[in-house]
């Protein structure tokens, strides 16, 4: 999905580095990288480090970093000129799906994104650098990065403890830590979707392990608010 854009913009000075947030490891993420025949760095982040380091709270999220290693746009929803996942939902006939899947797809169709605007902004920055209206000042970058109160910082610590327990083979012990991470930072979708996906892959529906699930939480905030709008 990003390989095509990388081909278009690499000769103009942009490198794309993808980071797979997958606690399940390379087995989960590598097939996608292989299929894309990616020729850019394609990293694996099992502990969702980029949430802590850059304030990522959902995927896909992009961060722009200039030639001096300075962030000029903090984490925000990012699309390579189109959104193949949501585009593919447009053509579906929901009546052909089981009711719970149809309900999920109906919500997903309401999610708002603006892939052409994002790509146009990215190209503008690649071509114009600091003079681009989309390149933000350091103060704007910090101010627009995600809020980090004590609760949000504690959420990261609990997510990591859960990941450690899961990775050492005690998945059941990870669940209370992930529940706590969700309680402390309810708008962090990477912590939620990662955890739900272990109990009910893909569908991320209601399970005994969590009081939350994809459909209930998306309806709770309103699907149109799932991604914040792109702000130049």
């Amino acid at each position, binding site marked *: 999905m990003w390989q095509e854009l990388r081909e278009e913009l690499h000769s103009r000075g942009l490198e794309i580095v993808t*980071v797979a947030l997958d606690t399940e490891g390379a087995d989960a993420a590598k097939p996608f990288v292989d299929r894309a025949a990616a020729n850019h*760095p394609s990293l694996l982040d099992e502990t969702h480090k980029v949430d802590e380091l850059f*304030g990522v709270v959902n995927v896909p999220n992009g961060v722009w970093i200039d030639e001096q290693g300075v962030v000029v746009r903090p984490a925000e929803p990012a699309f390579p000129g189109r959104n193949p996942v949501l585009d593919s939902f447009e053509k579906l006939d929901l009546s052909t799906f089981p009711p719970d899947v149809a309900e999920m797809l109906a919500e997903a169709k309401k999610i708002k994104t603006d892939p052409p605007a994002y790509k146009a902004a*990215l190209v503008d920055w690649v071509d114009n650098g600091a003079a681009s209206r989309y390149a933000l000042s350091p103060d704007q970058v910090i101010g627009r990065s995600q*809020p980090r109160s004590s609760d*949000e*910082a504690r959420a990261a*610590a609990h997510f990591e*403890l859960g990941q450690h327990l899961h990775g050492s083979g005690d998945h059941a012990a990870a669940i209370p830590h992930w529940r706590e991470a969700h309680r402390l930072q309810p708008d962090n979708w990477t912590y939620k979707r990662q955890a739900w996906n272990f109990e009910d892959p893909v569908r*991320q529906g209601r399970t005994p392990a969590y009081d939350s699930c994809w459909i209930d939480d998306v309806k709770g905030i309103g699907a149109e608010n799932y991604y914040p709008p792109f702000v130049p």
Partner: protein
Amino acid sequence: MLLDSLHLDAAAFEAGTGWAIKPEGACRGDVCVPLPVEARADGDVDVEVVAQRLGMPLVAGDGPDVWAVGPATAPTGRALTTAVAPELELPDLRTGDLFRLSSLHGQKVLLLAWASW
């Protein structure tokens, strides 16, 4: 960052948290937060003292000698303390080799987080 001790050497603390312990304090990018003298003991970092100064939560794990220290909430109250990009070191799925984000200095970078789920 996961810990099995509340005292560790400065290099390990920096690798895990991004904060370098220097004479002027705990530093990240262009920001330095002064530290009290008790933050350093025999060359090691006293994690409890530094964590409190930087507003990092220290959460005990399930067993003995396991803690997770979360990211700093001071001094900005935002995910980014500075616009200087933190180092990011992760394995590349294509080769298994460790990749460092700082190796791309001199180029524009789009760092793109995605997931299989």
